[in-house]
């Protein structure tokens, strides 16, 4: 769901085909019929943005027909846990949970906690609500639970009630999926789950780029936990990420709200005391996050070396603080509004790749200075003389005051380093040749820019300059004057006294003696060997292939694989045998690295006062969770509800059939004249934008085109921007095959060639037909093949958890002919 794997991740799709050849079933749920659908046993078109209703329908089906994996659910999830008696569900508040504050448009999650106490999140929004900061945190065993799963306030019953109206009939009327198709799919999934079999969900940005994106994944997580498909071979929820190192960039971490290894960046209202900060961010919780303080101290030691001492809380006093959402779209608005003055763009092309392109280009025009580093001169570098706004005469280059530095970058063959792939596998690429001309690696750029800045500041330092001057910045230089990338990987992997590489994350200490740049990557250089460069061919090892690359953490290939054995440590079935307890060897054994303390017995009962991973019993496989269990109900971490709820996309042609509250109430909106939104259905003007539009990728192009539109062969294979419409929509709007169409929103009008195909299906939603327009988003004004950018059509409106934009579902109009031209053409 939310992925066209055959076309967007074709080489990985070979494994899906292999599975099919062995009798596996492939089901594709997607608005469009694609090459993935062509190879599927069943293709189900659904209305873009209705996935929670669809998956919620599956949860309903599993619960009502008792198709869940009973032993797994009882032992490994929080199904039995009792929730605070003050919790109120969306069923009672018509689309809101308890704790909603209409002033701030946000939730206080105090009432979502366990009856036992507050529960720290293992990911997402950390911290404890103000009202409950003095409360005891849940560590290890939860006492308030009902193993019979019958208590009305146990998670299982709350779940059942929450999804009680997500019936097949509701799925039909919300998603446009006929009942018989839905029931066939539900049966297939249930038949293919349980002790003997597993089902996997594969998704991509079709699930994430929504105002309810994080909750799409949560819904799948609930379903997979109910079916017992997590931590087992052939199971899981697998994200297909779109860039070579998007996973690593997330881990290591070029994101405003996390430090490497998902450590939280302190907020302005967080305690200034390191220990208290760690406590309130999960440092006293059960599971491995109970070691948060050690992980953070070790990162700070890697950052500030000798200057990080117990006296300055290891450099905690050097860290900047957050005052809200500082994600990239906020920065864009900051450029437009004039408070962001300087901007670095490293291998990205926001002028084409981000929602509401014209707003980004407006932001770029308003900067003092801009540094773009890329292989080619992309639109983000040329906005000042080559953009839709310059072409239309709206702006003239001489009126744009931005100072632009374009620095050519080194390609992957011209530098060595590691990429982390979509399944957490770090793989090293060697340097093949030296870069030409002024081309340099980002490693060179970061190192030398840092060195110059530090030298300049050291001449006359001010108080605020200590963090930059004290940064540990000694890296051995290669002949090319690049820092040695392996030296950086060593720092990431960590070392103990006398520079000895850490064997793994278990060796990380809280006293500053083990500098480690990213705790989840600890051990990537264990034994002084670059583990990411392991390359034993697959024919020389078993199917798990532990000797190819290195997966974080600790080279584990399936996360939470303790769950592949039953509570007593025995395989659930011979067929799905993976990691199990060996009484003889007194440790967990299997083809993979066990994702559990290696010698922790399955019948281990934590002693009183045990902390972190030692507070979890031997039958709690989800070792990052405070209670060691998979969360059907998320008491914290998710800001827009402990359970997923169907809301319409921000722009939708239909009303919410389930609740009075139409849209995700916590979604991030930006109500300003340069970011207009279409009216809700029924409001004046809404009929002007009657169709649903969604964006997607093509095999031959890569995201915003910076690595594909400049290549002759790829450009020949996909030479032109087009839009995909159904024969019915083409007829209704007078569109001709191969002719031009203009797609219109309040943000932009773009033109595209028309592709009329029954692969786009009109869907019956409620009492009307919904037409969808498909738009690849690879084009811009540069490169060998040029065209309008689909992202220009979309508004800025974000998911509140991760601040991602909604570009997989919005409304539009489509008309025959080319778009209007400005007066200067």
């Amino acid at each position, binding site marked *: 769901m939310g992925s066209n794997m055959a076309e967007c991740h074709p*080489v990985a799709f070979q494994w899906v085909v292999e599975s099919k050849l062995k009798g596996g079933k492939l089901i594709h749920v997607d608005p469009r019929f694609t090459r993935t659908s062509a190879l599927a046993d069943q293709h189900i078109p659904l209305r873009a943005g209705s996935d929670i209703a669809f998956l919620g329908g599956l949860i309903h089906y599993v619960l009502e027909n008792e198709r869940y994996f009973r032993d797994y659910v009882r032992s490994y999830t929080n199904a039995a846990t009792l929730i605070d008696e003050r919790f109120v569900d969306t069923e009672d508040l018509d689309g809101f949970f308890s704790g909603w504050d209409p002033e701030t448009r946000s939730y206080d999650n105090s009432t979502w906690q366990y009856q036992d106490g507050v529960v720290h999140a293992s990911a997402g929004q950390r911290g404890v609500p103000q009202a409950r900061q003095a409360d005891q945190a849940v560590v290890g065993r939860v006492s308030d639970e009902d193993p019979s799963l019958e208590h009305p306030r146990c998670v299982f019953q709350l779940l059942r009630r929450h999804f009680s109206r997500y019936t097949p009939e509701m799925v039909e009327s919300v998603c446009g999926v006929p009942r018989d198709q839905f029931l066939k799919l539900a049966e297939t999934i249930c038949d293919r789950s349980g002790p003997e079999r597993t089902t996997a969900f594969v998704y991509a940005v079709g699930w994430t780029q929504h105002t309810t994106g994080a909750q799409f994944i949560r819904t799948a997580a609930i379903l997979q936990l109910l079916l017992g498909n997590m931590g087992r071979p052939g199971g899981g929820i697998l994200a297909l990420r779109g860039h070579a190192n998007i996973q690593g960039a997330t881990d290591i971490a070029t994101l405003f709200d996390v430090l490497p290894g998902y450590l939280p960046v302190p907020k302005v209202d967080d305690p200034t005391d390191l220990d208290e900060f760690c406590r309130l961010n999960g440092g006293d919780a059960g599971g491995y996050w109970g070691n948060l303080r050690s992980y953070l101290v070790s990162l700070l030691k890697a950052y500030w070396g000798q200057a990080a001492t117990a006296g300055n809380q290891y450099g905690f006093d050097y860290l900047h603080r957050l005052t809200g959402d500082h994600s990239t779209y906020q920065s864009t608005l900051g450029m437009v509004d004039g408070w962001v003055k300087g901007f670095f763009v490293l291998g*990205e092309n926001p002028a084409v790749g981000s929602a509401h392109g014209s707003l980004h280009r407006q932001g770029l025009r308003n900067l003092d200075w801009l540094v773009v580093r890329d292989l080619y001169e992309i639109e983000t570098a040329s906005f000042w003389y080559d953009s839709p706004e310059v072409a239309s005469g709206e702006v003239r280059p001489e009126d744009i005051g931005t100072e632009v530095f374009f620095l050519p970058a080194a390609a992957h063959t011209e530098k060595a380093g590691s990429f982390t792939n979509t399944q957490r596998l770090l793989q090293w690429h060697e340097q093949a040749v030296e870069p030409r001309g002024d081309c340099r690696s980002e490693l060179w750029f970061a190192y030398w820019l840092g060195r110059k800045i530090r030298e300049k500041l050291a001449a006359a330092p001010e108080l605020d300059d200590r963090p930059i001057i004290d940064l540990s910045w000694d890296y051995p230089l290669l002949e090319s004057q690049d820092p040695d990338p392996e030296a950086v990987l060593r720092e990431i992997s960590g070392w103990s006294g006398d520079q000895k590489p850490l064997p793994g994350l278990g060796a990380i200490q809280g006293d500053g003696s083990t500098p480690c740049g990213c705790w989840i990557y600890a051990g990537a250089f264990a034994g002084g060997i670059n583990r990411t460069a392991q390359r034993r061919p697959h024919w020389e090892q078993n199917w798990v292939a532990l000797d190819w690359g290195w997966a974080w953490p600790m080279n584990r290939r399936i996360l939470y694989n303790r769950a592949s054995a039953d509570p007593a440590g025995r395989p659930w079935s011979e067929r799905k045998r993976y990691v199990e307890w060996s009484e003889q060897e007194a440790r967990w054994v299997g083809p993979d690295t066990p994702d559990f303390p290696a010698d922790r017995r399955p019948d281990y009962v934590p002693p009183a006062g045990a902390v972190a991973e030692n507070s979890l019993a031997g039958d709690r496989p989800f070792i990052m969770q405070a209670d060691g269990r998979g969360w059907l109900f998320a008491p914290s971490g998710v800001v827009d509800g402990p359970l997923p709820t169907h809301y319409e996309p921000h722009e939708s042609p239909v009303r919410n059939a389930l609740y009075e509250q139409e849209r995700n109430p916590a979604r991030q909106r930006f109500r300003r004249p340069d970011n207009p939104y279409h009216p809700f259905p029924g409001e004046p003007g809404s009929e002007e934008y009657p169709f649903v539009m969604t964006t997607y990728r093509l095999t031959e192009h890569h995201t915003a085109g910076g690595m594909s539109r400049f290549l002759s062969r790829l450009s020949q294979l996909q030479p032109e921007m087009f839009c995909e419409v159904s024969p019915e929509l083409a007829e209704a709007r007078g569109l001709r095959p191969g002719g031009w169409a203009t797609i219109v929103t309040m943000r932009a009008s773009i033109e595209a060639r028309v592709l009329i195909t029954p692969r786009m299906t009109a869907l019956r939603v409620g009492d009307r037909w919904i037409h969808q327009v498909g738009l690849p988003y690879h084009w811009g004004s540069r490169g060998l093949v040029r065209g309008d950018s689909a992202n220009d059509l979309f508004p800025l409106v974000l998911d509140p958890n991760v601040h991602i934009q909604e570009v997989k579902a919005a409304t539009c109009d489509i008309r025959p002919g080319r778009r209007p031209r400005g007066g200067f053409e």
Partner: protein
Amino acid sequence: MSISKRLPMWPVVRQLAEGDPLGLGRAAASAKTRAIAPRTALADRVVPSICPYCAVGCGQLVYVKDEQVTQIEGDPGSPLSRGRLCPKGSASKELVNSPLRELKVKYRRPHGSAWEELELDQAMEMIADRVIATRRATFERSDAQGRPLRRTMGIASLGGATIDNEENYLWRKLMVGLGVVQVENQARI
């Protein structure tokens, strides 16, 4: 040319002698074809690499001759890709060798109407000066209530999904040192 030299070149003889009676294989090759070898056979060295496009992480083998990338093939040893590459991965030789690659620093002064040349080192000096000046001008030591902020909101950074872990790590480290909060990458988008 003597008959003893010419006879073996006669196609019928070659077809029979070379085990290609239908003349559809080796025997049909011209002298020119016989004289050439695939670039993969002529390489000075083969360097293991990883495809730079999507996140599947297919193995690549980069063939180098005379310090030039002459071919990029799938790595058959990879348990992920088993030697396969998609159209983009197969095009990655052009990605690195394309004549459209930018090789020189380009500079556009405020209100300028054309790119200008700039030495790399001078560009680095200028960028360092801009960072320092903007940081100084926009630094926030604390908020209105006196709580520490230690940051600049005047500088933002975007990118990281197409570059290495080591690069992301070092870049973020520098940005944290400077107090630059707004460091983001494609993962958000």
